[in-house]
């Protein structure tokens, strides 16, 4: 598999506090990599190191195959864009002027492509409106346009949906999916809004206290978050006998409630229970969420 970003035992110490403790991660090319962790887990620190804003205490990373200690890392960074905490914009400038400024920094000979970028992020009609008067969602989308100015093929977004209203969240999600599918841009997205991340990510990395707890694909997560059937019966003892005969995995929760970790035929189950003199009162399908999976990985405590 080809990787856009690989980190190897990255460590970052601030005086006595260790923000990253030998973090190793692999972001596959073309993926939307969900970087999941609590506040203070080290997500933003990693972003800052990759962007060159901060220096790692030890360890290294590879960006587009270029080692962080090589001089070529400056050129490799040219192929990525990033929004860390907040998009980098000049509040007194319009959307177009902000993009023109980025073009100047990139040394582009002309401003061709700015209109396309603006329409790509849905800001083609903002005309003379200054960025300081933009909504948070508009600023985030302009931030993505700014990050894409040099036709980048890797974007790192730190909490891109924080503070957005529901409409803004949907627009941001659609934009990320569009850029990933149509332009093949690889995304590294950090977030602790896991339900939203679950709608986007194709790979996940779970970080806790500066360490990578686990990396897995969305398919692997789906398998791990296996579905269960929650049933309410008149007697769980009778239910247990029936499920044992059917060789199904289950967990008794109380005298009347149980979880079945399989998908038995309902009519078949009702008939079998009836034979045992047990009534099925209700049943509902349940699925473990990404949030639940994350909690099961890192425990329920808080870093804050």
């Amino acid at each position, binding site marked *: 598999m080809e990787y856009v970003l690989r980190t190897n035992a990255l460590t970052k110490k601030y005086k006595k506090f260790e923000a990253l403790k030998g973090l190793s991660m692999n972001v596959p090319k073309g993926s939307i990599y969900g970087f999941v962790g609590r506040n203070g887990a080290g997500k933003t620190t990693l972003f800052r190191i990759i*962007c060159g804003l901060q220096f790692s205490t030890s360890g290294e990373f590879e960006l587009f195959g270029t080692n962080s200690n090589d001089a070529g890392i400056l050129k490799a*960074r*040219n192929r990525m864009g990033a929004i860390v*905490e907040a998009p*980098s914009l*000049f*509040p*007194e400038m319009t959307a177009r002027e902000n993009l023109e400024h980025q073009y100047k*920094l990139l*040394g582009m000979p002309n401003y061709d492509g700015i209109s396309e970028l603006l329409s790509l992020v849905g800001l083609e009609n903002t005309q003379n409106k200054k960025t300081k008067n933009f909504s948070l969602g508009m600023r985030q989308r302009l931030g993505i346009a700014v990050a894409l100015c040099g036709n980048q093929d890797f974007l790192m977004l730190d909490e891109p949906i924080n503070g957005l209203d529901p409409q803004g969240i949907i627009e941001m999600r659609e934009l990320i999916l569009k850029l990933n599918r149509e332009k093949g841009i690889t995304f590294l997205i950090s977030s602790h809004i896991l339900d939203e991340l679950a709608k986007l990510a194709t790979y996940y990395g779970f970080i806790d206290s500066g360490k990578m707890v686990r990396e897995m694909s969305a398919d692997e997560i789906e398998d791990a978050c296996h579905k269960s059937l929650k049933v309410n019966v008149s007697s769980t003892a009778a239910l247990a006998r029936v499920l044992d005969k059917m060789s199904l995995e289950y967990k008794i929760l109380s005298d009347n409630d149980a979880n079945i970790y399989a998908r038995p035929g309902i009519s078949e189950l009702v008939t079998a229970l009836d034979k045992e003199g047990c009534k099925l009162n209700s049943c509902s399908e349940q699925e473990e969420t990404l949030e639940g999976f994350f909690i099961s990985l890192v425990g329920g405590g808080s870093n804050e």
Partner: protein
Amino acid sequence: MSKLLRADLSVLFRSKLFYGMILLCIFLPAVTNLEAYLSEPGAPLLAPSVTLTMFLCLFVGNFIGGLALVLISAEFTSGEIRNKLIMGHKRSDIFASWVIVYSLEMLIAIIVFFGVFLLSGIIIGYDMSVCDFGEILMNMLVITVMFFGNSLALSILITIILPDTKAFIIFYVLYEALAVPGILLYEKYPDSIIVKIINRCFALSYLTLDDKALIVGFDEPWFTIACSLTFGVVIIAIAKLLFDRKDLK
């Protein structure tokens, strides 16, 4: 590097504060010349040029550093530096671009100030034959080097240490406060070489002592340039060292 210069210059020339500074550099000499002429018609140009030396130090010197500070700290807070780094620019180039662009800002301010001072003097009707333009040019050079050290370099250093609005207050206080030891020491030890060197490092103490006038050549200009340039270079070197090692947000 040229890309950075282009981008930084465009930010400078877009800034309303820059034009505010230019207006100040026009307003101060023009009005001071006029006011001196009206209060004593036929008086020599010397009178307003003493007042203007003080105004130049107090207001323009402060404004030059303040503007650089505001625009550079905006780069820190807006994430502009992050963009520059991601685009593959080296920290040393980013720093060099600041020094070049804001030195240009300083030069523009000083040239406009002196230009308006001389032009308004001619228009108002002062006797310009007393002016030695060679000495005036040398004075401009001395002031430029002094402002580079304790206005521009100091503001860049403070912004790198503390890149937010508090930096402006610290710069303002420091710019004024650094003049105090020199002035006090000069009163007590007027012939001390160390006091002489200290005074020549700080524009506000040097230029406000002994009623210096813009049209009268300053004493030992090259010595003054050497002192203040050394001070400026040391401050810039410290600022660069800190910026190269700084963990940015």
